[in-house]
């Protein structure tokens, strides 16, 4: 089923911003609609403090490691997961990373998770922001580097959506024999989670629906359901919520039928071939984005609060689902 679109654009220092505009969206797909944390949230404060301490150390390390790492271009893989219309954000983030790292940064965009996974496997890219499901597939080849903090927690969910006018559906069990839109075969919330829900109901996801198809984007799943092409679809809660802020006229045409349990938020990973110094330097830059105005502004535009180091155990829930289908 690896038939996704193969539009590939590398965004590098050498390219002007307008060139980057042609593709971008990557970050948009990742980042939208994040609210600022309430100031009074002690836990957050504590976390921020801890991050700050860690960042200080990282900065020092980064400075020390700069010589060893040299000026090789950093290649950062971005997977499609969200909005298509914030090209400027991607360019700004790349510039931000370049300034912090002191090295040129190249974003490598692919339209399906599978392609980015292949690039990681082939070490054509050093870092990537991927979905949790691919992360578990690649667990032996990549290291967890950072996890976004979304609404104060490094978790997100899967939404089962139907068209807004479709009022009688209250559970996935009622969708038997209908047309269903998946996001990507390597998407957790857009593929694995709904199939797991059916599995738990004792249904065979392969035969439960009359027809299923992949849109290779969460946003397009929402559009497919809104337009009536699919009766229902499964979508990333982060994407739906963000889109509800950015383009409410689309989400208004859909209705959330059910919300899944929490899953670890799509992580930023580094290939195991990346040296420790380089790993820590990149991690440090990400974790400290909340510490300077430029970084804070970028995070706000991503609709996330901050990056935290994260723990592989956060993804155990996903691993359990995979196990149910004989994967992992």
């Amino acid at each position, binding site marked *: 089923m690896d*038939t996704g679109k193969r539009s590939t654009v590398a965004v590098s220092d050498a390219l002007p911003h307008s060139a980057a505009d042609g593709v971008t969206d990557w970050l948009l797909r990742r980042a939208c609609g994040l609210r600022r944390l309430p100031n009074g949230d002690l836990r957050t404060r504590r976390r921020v403090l801890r991050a700050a301490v860690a960042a200080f150390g990282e900065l020092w390390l980064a400075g020390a490691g700069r010589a060893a790492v040299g000026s090789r271009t950093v290649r950062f893989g971005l997977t499609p997961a969200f909005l298509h219309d914030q090209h400027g954000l991607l360019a700004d983030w790349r510039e931000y990373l370049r300034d912090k790292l002191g090295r040129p940064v190249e974003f490598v965009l692919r339209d399906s998770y599978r392609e980015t996974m292949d690039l990681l496997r082939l070490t054509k890219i050093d870092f990537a922001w991927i979905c949790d499901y691919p992360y578990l597939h690649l667990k032996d080849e990549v290291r967890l580097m950072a996890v976004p903090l979304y609404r104060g927690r490094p978790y997100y969910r899967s939404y089962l959506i139907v068209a807004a006018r479709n009022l009688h559906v209250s559970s996935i069990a009622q969708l038997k024999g209908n047309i269903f839109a998946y996001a990507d075969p390597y998407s957790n919330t857009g593929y694995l989670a709904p199939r797991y829900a059916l599995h738990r109901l004792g249904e065979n996801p392969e035969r439960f629906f*009359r027809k299923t*198809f992949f849109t290779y984007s969460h946003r397009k799943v929402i559009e497919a359901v809104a337009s009536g092409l699919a009766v229902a679809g499964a979508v990333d809660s982060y994407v739906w919520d963000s889109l509800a802020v950015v383009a409410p006229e689309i989400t208004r045409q859909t209705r959330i039928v059910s919300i899944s349990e929490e899953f670890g938020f799509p992580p930023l990973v580094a290939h195991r071939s990346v040296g420790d110094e380089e790993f820590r330097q990149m991690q440090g830059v990400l974790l400290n984005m909340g510490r300077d105005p430029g970084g804070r502004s970028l995070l706000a535009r991503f609709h996330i609060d901050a990056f935290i180091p994260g723990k592989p155990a956060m993804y155990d829930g996903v691993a359990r689902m995979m196990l149910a289908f004989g994967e992992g």
Partner: protein
Amino acid sequence: MKRLFDLSFRYKIPLWGSVLIVTAALFVASSLMFRAYEDLRRDLYISADGLARTLAKTLFPAILHDNVWQAFEIVRAPFHGASPEHPVQAELVLVVDDRQQIYVSDDPKTLPMLTGIRYVSEEFAALAQRIAELGASPGTHEFAGSKHIYFITPIADGEALLGHLVLGYSREAFFERFLDIARNAAGIAALVVTVLLPINWYWGRRTAEPLVRLAARMSEVGHSVPAPMEPGLYAYRDELGRLFEAYERMVTELRGKKVLEREMVRSERLAAVGRLSAGIAHEINNPLAGMLTAISTLKEHGHADVRTLKTMALVERGLQQIRDTVAALLVQARLVSRNLAAQDLEDVRTLLEPEAQRKAARIEWQCEVQGEVDLPATLVRQILINLMLNAINAAGERGSVRCRVALEGNCLEINVANDGRPLPEEVKERLFEPFTTTGSGPGLGLWVTYQIVQQLGGRIAARSGDGLTFFTVSLPASPAPCVPKATASA
């Protein structure tokens, strides 16, 4: 229908012109519309064909890999959807798979995936049948009352036929667009008609008017001599102009004929009167002569008393008056006379002098005759005296009389004019009849003159004009008749 053809040219010419103009405008407008319709249709076919080929080619891999979303994005691409600016845009894009189910449509809400198209509507059932008939070849589907014009294109690559792409173009929008053009064409036609009709009407009336006038005048022929046309009514040299000229000639000839007829009637009448009076005179003269002889004998040998003598003298005077009158009526031109000499004319002048002086009239005498003229002197003198006495009488006190005698070719021309009152119409008609008088005298002078002129083979005419009254006499000096210089009028 006949009544239509019986109409006056005044209406017929503009009417036919109008019919022609309207017919031509209708014809041109409808051919423009027809052409526009064909062009629109061709544009639609070309546009639809191009779009369909491109879409079908792009859709093939998407359908082959069962990439529904990609196929959906292709059919939903924003190059269709009719709008006022682009009326020939596809309103409906539909991909039908090989089982005639909807694979994907641009509006899944009304045409959801996997629906058998024959169950969508009757129109689609017919469409399904058409698709089945077409197989792997492209075609169109449309019928009276269908909502769309459908362009059906197979989605195939070589042998592999995956399904069909159906593009639906709104027939309503198409006809709306056509109606727009049709309305424009009709507007132009109406404008042309509005401009041309008054011009045609004006021109038609202008052409018909002289004809109508001519026809009106012509219809008078037979009853009376029509009046000539107003000059400048039609000053062109085309057929109508020539008709006008012919008309003028005809009128002139008719008038001449009329004058001739009247003159003939008059001379016939005068001749009849002459014959009658001659006959009567002869019949009277014989017993009259007897009666006078008897009275004369009775006076000499009758020994009548005074009273009887007195009565006989009265009878004799009466009989003599009858004889004079009859003698005057019976103009005898046969008496032998010597030829006219210039001196004779001078004599007449001398004879008239006392009468002219008595009336204090002025006489303008112009005599251009020299030597002898082969005409009897006595008769010519009598003619001249009669005419001159009449003229002096007519001119009245201190009037003016003009006399001209001349030889014109072989004719002796006598012209006498006076400035007295013009001749009254009723007198003119009977001028040369006996006992026609304007006051003084018994009214036999002109009668005698006429008789003499007739007997000499000449012509006499009278006319009034320019304050003068003319009497003209032409007398042939040789047996050949006089050639008139100008037409004399009564």
